[in-house]
């Protein structure tokens, strides 16, 4: 369970307008069938995460109960109810990476950043997630920071890599 971070909701009017417009467009293209996941994906794209207020907007627009929205949002790994860090770190814990030692890399990151998987540092700079196989097994073990990919990572490289983002 991710650590709950006390960040007040600071969504803007523009974001809300953008979301409502996106939802209207989705209703157009998808018809009535199977909108929810696509709607949540759009919302997360706009806000970066899915705070309660945003879930209410979706419920209202899709004529669903907030419980339904919450149910779907908490089912899938892609959705986060909490904000992510400015730099999102992912460590692949797929089998190929795991047998090559990505578990140690992950542990080293937890120790260095003093957070656990799914959490974010207090300054909202780094968040850490264990990811499923990202499919570049030739580079195992792999970690990503936003769009940067680091291959064949060893625990003693971690501090050097993080330093680039500080």
């Amino acid at each position, binding site marked *: 369970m991710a650590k709950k971070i006390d960040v007040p909701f600071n969504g803007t009017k523009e974001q809300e307008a953008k979301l409502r417009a996106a939802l209207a467009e989705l209703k157009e293209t998808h018809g009535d069938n*199977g909108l929810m996941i696509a709607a949540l994906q759009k919302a997360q794209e706009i806000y970066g995460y899915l705070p309660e207020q945003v879930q209410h907007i979706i419920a209202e627009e899709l004529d669903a109960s907030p419980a339904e929205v919450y149910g779907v949002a908490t089912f899938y*790994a892609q959705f986060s109810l909490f904000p992510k860090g400015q730099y999102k770190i992912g460590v692949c814990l797929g089998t190929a990476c795991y047998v090559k030692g990505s578990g140690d890399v992950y542990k080293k990151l937890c120790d260095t950043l003093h957070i656990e998987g799914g959490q974010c540092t207090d300054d909202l700079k780094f968040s850490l997630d264990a990811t499923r196989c990202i499919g570049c097994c030739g580079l195992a073990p792999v970690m990503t920071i936003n769009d940067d990919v680091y291959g064949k990572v060893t625990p003693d490289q971690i501090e050097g890599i993080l330093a680039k983002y500080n």
Partner: protein
Amino acid sequence: MFRSHILVCGGTGCTSNNSIKIYEALVHRIYKEGLEKEVHVTQTGCFGLCALGPIMIVYPEGAFYSQVKVEDVDEIVDEHIIKGRIVTRLLYKETVADDGSIKALNDTNFYKKQHRVALRNCGVINPEKIEEYIAYDGYEALGKVLTEMTPQDVIDVILKSGLRGRGGAGFPTGRKWQFAKNSVGEKKYVCCNADEGDPGAFMDRSILEGDPHAVIEAMAIAGYAIGADQGYIYVRAEYPIAVQRLTIAIKQAREYGLLGKNIFGTGFNFDLDIRLGAGAFVCGEETALMTSIEGHRGEPRPRPPFPAVKGLFGKPTILNNVETYANVPQIILKGADWFASMGTEKSRGTKVFALGGKIHNTGLVEIPMGTTMREIIYDIGGGCPNGKKFKAAQTGGPSGGCIPAHLIDTPIDYDNLLAIGSMMGSGGLIVMDEDNCMVDIAKFFLEFTVDESCGKCTACRVGTKRLYEMLCKVTDGTATMEDLDKMEELCYYIKENSLCGLGQTAPNPVLSTLHYFRDEYEAHVRDKRCPAGVCKKLLRYQIVADKCKGCTLCARNCPVGAITGSVKEPHVIDPEKCIKCGVCMEKCRFGAIIKA
């Protein structure tokens, strides 16, 4: 006409390694030299040999450059393209013959035993250009089906070919199609399962990235066979390149009239949409996937009714995996007999495997069914690196099992793998060497299933959690021999009482390791020892007195001051203080510190 073609791999493995920058640098240089009318640079799908990425091939010479860096681009253009001298230092060693000439790629060990059907266009064509797919007989099968065959003819060919589902369970594809065709209904759906969730498997992604039109064409053929006019491709949102190429491919197919209304003027209508998965392993299960397309939590539904009767939105539906579809156009064009001539009696055709873990040639290979594990791991994969001993191969992901070294000569097909306690799965093949602890591996998979169990069935939700806790006891050294028996009992209970494939197969990694590596479990339980030296709680670092020179380096680096001893005298580690960080072993220059 171009005098030279440069193919740069644009698969995920190579792009994570900067292949896009290499491609851009190449294009830039070629334009700068004014060679754009002579030299053609293309970004293709995956070549398969991901371990050597980024990969580039230059034709007509067939020079296979591996581990190319952006800095190498100028040298390749200056030497190879302008002066015609191949840059030997960048060539993949295997492709250079003794006399220095270049061998055909298909003669190298990695490619020699492969037979590419599903992957035939990957690394060959530009996946973002429908014209290139068409040039390689693309959409000819759809044309043949629509103009020369009845829906039943199509199903008969697929049935006769013996094609079985490549997603894991191996259900005969033709029979699935027949059921859906026989179901009465005005609206039917064709779905494609591209929610590749098995950790370490990436063949579906590579096909979508390298040859998206093959899947689109096959889905249209399936639509014609069962009488559907709408299809959905459910693909992981974690595969951005695949999603992008699919989107482009669908758009192009529509522009060419190969999707949409009145295809080939035959009155047949078929269109496709993409649905993005949001990261839930259970959605690889067919009923869960359909629930997810409908926008809900991806929980599985009881079967019957089977999807062929009542599937997506309650309508008859077929769902096949990406690799299964990729075979279909070839079967239609070359015939059922051609396909059935490959493979074993009950498993026809080829299978793509993603080789990963402790193996030299990490990557994607496609081999005829019936090839032995030994051929894949040693002949194609090049064996374990650093001279380590092969211990086991894991197939089938979290639903599969570990195949021990003594069964390495088993010919791989659906039935043989099941018989030895594993399964084909989607085709991940992870190699483990003597440094991997099998209990730890079983625990790793259980942790995965605990996390991914959707929670609908108690047996799976609670059972996997309890099983995981028992495994933790084993790796912590607090389990008893009785616990091992209890674990086995619980495994069978979970298998028998779960609704869907996830729960029914979740205990497989435990059962197969218990079966083949019981001695390792017993070592953890009885001797409180992890033979591979992986399980931290059971680890003891020791100093071999004979080898220790008393240099004090270890003592100075130990973060908790657990090492004592005088200068030039053998040192000792206090096990009470030791936190098993391993720094001492890393620092010791004399190899005097061992894991016991």
